[in-house]
């Protein structure tokens, strides 16, 4: 097998696919939908809150300053403005500010009712200021004051670590990404093979290069496009989420993206082989849907089972599905992202998937070589396997 030939074939696939307007549009639409999902909630005011506080005294300012860390912890963005007592009162009445702190023993002025979060934050600030003053009166130097006021972080012990909302969110997104990339680009492989059969160009190609080179180039080229698109969509999603503060631990998002990309490679190799066989068996575009139906059924079943695996990564069903290559392609990465699962399961499932993909690719290249030149009628799978 000549690598140069494989790369030439792959290059043609990439250039042809990427240049298609439908590809560009589909990519942009996907990114648009993703951006909408990520950006809209915060744009519409869900999740992130903000409040404006007007201060008219030194003491008020101290309270607001002391309140800032706890505001941040509650995702409450505080805007502070200065004004005279009278102005502050007027601004509260006009609704230009959410609260005003006036007087040396600060009083909180609101039009009617104080927002729970803002109230908690301001109370926290006020109590912090009083504590600080008391500590100073007790003769503690500033360093000792800080030591008292910034206690070491609480140790958190998770009793059910699988229940991680954020990880489950990533895992759910991973299901969508993997499923649509596998089914979409797998179909492209079948359609690309049938296009060459139906247009008869395959005979000229095979008078020049070997069937294996043609198949390898096609799978490689379409795989590069699929992986590139997945990387682009994933990166845009993660970066937007970070930019809009929707993710608590950005590193986890990148880890999830890397897991998705790695398992996509294995799953793609597995399903590409199946779609290649399907394509090699039929002579016309109209028959692709028909011949790929069994593969699509498997993918759809895997898709639905994966949601179960997200909600219960340690469940018996999820464990079994991780060792069956066609389902492992989505279930395994999703479990890895959703919760701590035993390392041996990840390793064993990955190895089985890799072996499955390798065996299928070898079988596919044999069936493809036997069947691809039979352009007239549909070829039976058993015949394609046997014929020399």
């Amino acid at each position: 097998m000549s690598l140069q030939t494989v790369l030439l074939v792959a290059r043609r696939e990439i250039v042809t696919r990427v240049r298609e307007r439908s590809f560009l549009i589909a990519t942009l639409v996907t990114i648009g939908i993703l951006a909408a999902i990520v950006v809209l909630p915060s744009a519409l005011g869900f999740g992130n809150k903000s409040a404006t506080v007007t201060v008219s005294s030194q003491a008020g300012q101290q309270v607001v300053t002391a309140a800032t860390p706890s505001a941040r912890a509650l995702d409450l963005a505080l805007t502070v403005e200065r004004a005279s007592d009278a102005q502050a009162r007027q601004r509260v009445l006009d609704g230009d500010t959410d609260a005003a702190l006036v007087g040396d023993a600060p009083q909180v002025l609101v039009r009617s009712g104080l927002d729970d979060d803002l109230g908690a934050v301001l109370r926290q600030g006020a109590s912090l200021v009083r504590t600080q003053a008391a500590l100073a009166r007790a003769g503690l130097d500033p360093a000792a004051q800080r030591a008292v006021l910034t206690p070491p972080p609480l140790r958190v012990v998770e009793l059910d670590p699988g229940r991680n909302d954020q990880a489950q969110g990533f895992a759910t997104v991973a299901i969508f990404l993997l499923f649509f990339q596998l089914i979409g680009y797998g179909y492209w492989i079948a359609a690309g093979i049938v296009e060459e059969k139906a247009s008869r160009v395959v005979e000229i190609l095979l008078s020049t290069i070997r069937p294996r080179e043609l198949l390898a180039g096609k799978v490689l080229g379409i795989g590069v496009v699929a992986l590139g698109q997945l990387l682009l969509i994933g990166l845009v999603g993660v970066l937007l989420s970070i930019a809009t503060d929707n993710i608590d631990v950005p590193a986890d998002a990148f880890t999830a993206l890397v897991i998705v990309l790695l398992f996509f490679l294995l799953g793609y190799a597995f399903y590409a082989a199946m779609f290649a066989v399907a394509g090699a068996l039929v002579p016309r575009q109209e028959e692709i849907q028909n011949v790929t139906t069994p593969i699509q059924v498997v993918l759809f079943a895997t898709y639905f089972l994966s949601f179960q695996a997200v909600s219960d990564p340690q469940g018996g069903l999820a464990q079994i599905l991780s060792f069956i290559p066609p389902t492992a392609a989505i279930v395994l990465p999703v479990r890895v992202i959703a919760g701590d699962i035993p390392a041996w399961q990840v390793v064993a499932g990955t190895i089985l998937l890799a072996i499955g993909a390798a065996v299928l690719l070898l079988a596919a290249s044999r069936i493809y070589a036997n069947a691809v030149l039979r352009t007239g009628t549909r070829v039976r799978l058993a015949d394609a396997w046997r014929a020399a």
Partner: protein
Amino acid sequence: MLELDGLTRRYGDVVALDGLTFSVSPGQVFGFVGPNGAGKTTAMRIVLGVLSADAGSVRWEGRPIDEALRARFGYMPEERGLYPKMRVEEQLAYFARLHGADAPSASSAARHWMEQVGVANRADDRVEQLSLGNQQRVQLATALVHDPIALILDEPFSGLDPVGVDVMSEVLVARAREDGVPVLFSSHQLDLVERLCDAVAIIKDGGLVASGTVAELRARGAAQGIWRVEVQGAAPGWAAAAGFDVRSEDGDATLVTAPDEQALLDAARAAGRVTRFEPVAATLAELFREAVGPTASAFESASRTIETA
């Protein structure tokens, strides 16, 4: 020299090729003729390695052919094939590269052959936007774009208009004459084969029934001793009445097969005033029918009479 030696291929119980042997010399335009289903396409596919033979071998300059050699052949399959949505120039350059050319020489070869076959003004069109005739020209350019050492063309003339036939003929003959490339093509247009080819192979049921130059076939063939006799004032059917094998009769002119032309002349003079008496060179079409004979259907027998008239 391209040699096919004892090629045999079966599809189940059907014998497509049965020990087919012949060779094509450098610079030779070689016609490959035979009835439908005789095995022409199977033989060409085996030469190109698209199909494998059950027995026999294909040799190039005495050596069995391998992948590297095959990649330097030019091939035009019976069922034409190009990427419908790919642009003409891009497509030609792609095929040149698959054959091993680097990028710059592939694109200059693509431009050269678009000029040669007359589609240079369609370089940026998708193949599916071209007329069938122009697609055929691109197909020919695809077979030529890598400067092949041998050309194998399956029915290159089918579907071409007269101008296309001329372009195709010129290119094929030029490749043979100027570059010494052996050109093997199959065709049912026997007049064209006769006009273009230095040599011909006639096959039937997967085996060779005759091969050589058209003159050799004539000398060897059974279709000799045909005479055109024009006799004024003779009674219709005079030759048949005298016991000769009459191929056709049209007014004064009669086409007769006669091993002994002197006896025929005597009979003609006895029948009337002989105004014309000449040997008729068998056309390739006639030689073909003689050679392929027994499979000729009733339809073909009928059309034989009409054509020789």
